[in-house]
């Protein structure tokens, strides 16, 4: 997944995952990461009906919808130095905060529902969407309180409830009913990545395990 990017203006080479320039006149400089989402087209369309979408017209055959499943069997880079916490091609939602990093396996997020965890001492919520592939993360601190989230038991649709007030929350991190209605959780950036790649660039990462 990780690659180098080349800019024609200065002839510098940039690392994708960090945005850092590794070679060339701008060596040592770093691109600013902007917030971004990895969600299904349906989710994005429902939340941002005024959005535009980019149609690529390369005139070539693009990978099919199941391409991610098909490349999951390919060998992975890393060699003997790689950590064996997870299979190399297991997808994780990685979060970095306060110099710490945690990989949340997508498999665990799908199985266990909302995950209440902490990264770098800060309480976070990591949650997969109803489709199982969209993933978002939020700070759990709201005002002076730290919230704990559960999957709403009374619906098959996506809904969370917080333990303290029983308010209902949607996938965008907004409280839609209950005492906290109208409140918005602050997002924290997660990066969906293969384990072999995530651990390579975050050597001190921990891995979230269900029940710990």
């Amino acid at each position, binding site marked *: 997944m990780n690659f180098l990017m080349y800019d024609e203006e200065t002839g510098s080479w940039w690392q994708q995952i960090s945005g850092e320039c590794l070679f060339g006149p701008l060596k040592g400089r770093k691109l600013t990461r902007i917030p971004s989402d990895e969600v299904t*087209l349906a989710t994005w369309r429902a939340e941002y009906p005024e959005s535009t979408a980019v149609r690529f017209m390369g005139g070539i055959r693009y990978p099919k919808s199941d391409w991610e499943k098909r490349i999951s069997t390919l060998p992975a880079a890393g060699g003997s130095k790689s950590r064996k916490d997870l299979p190399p091609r297991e997808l994780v939602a990685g979060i970095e905060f306060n110099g710490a990093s945690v990989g949340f396996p997508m498999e665990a997020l799908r199985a266990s529902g909302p995950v209440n965890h902490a990264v770098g001492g800060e309480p976070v919520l990591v949650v997969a969407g109803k489709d199982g592939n969209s993933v978002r993360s939020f700070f759990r601190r709201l005002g002076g309180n730290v919230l704990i989230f559960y999957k709403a038991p009374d619906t098959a649709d996506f809904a969370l409830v917080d333990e303290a007030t029983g308010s209902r929350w949607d996938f965008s991190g907004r409280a839609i009913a209950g005492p906290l209605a109208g409140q918005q959780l602050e997002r924290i950036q997660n990066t969906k990545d293969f384990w072999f790649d995530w651990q390579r660039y975050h050597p001190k990462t921990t891995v979230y395990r269900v029940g710990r």
Partner: protein
Amino acid sequence: MFLLGTLAVLTAVLALAPLYVVLPLTEQSATLLDLSLSVRHVSPLACLLLAATATAWFAIKWRKWTGRLRTAGVALLLVALSGAALTRINIVERIFPPADGAVLAEIARFVDVADTDIVIGVKMGVETRAYPVRFLAHHHMWNDKLGGVPILPNY
């Protein structure tokens, strides 16, 4: 002949070493990557000089070489010339075709990918845009501007 051989080998090494940058599914070390990018940086000019020297040397010597010696000389010259030619082609760009020609669509009418396919969604100011991962995964990146800010969605 020894000089011609050395020139041919050098040209080939300088032309091929940068391919280390694009070796798939291997872990490149930072030092070798740096070396390989340095070689790539100097190889177009260096290979041109080497190939020119090889051509000049061949022009001087070919009359003296006969039979198999001449065949070997031609072969080595060809290696040097192809090496020099190779450094003039952006191989990386041929392996990873840059996206050219992308247009915007309203999301309500966007049916190029399935509803269940993942998009990279970006919000800059009041503008929002979806970049389908299936397309980005092929081109890897797209230089764009959103909300007045130059951005580089990549995958």
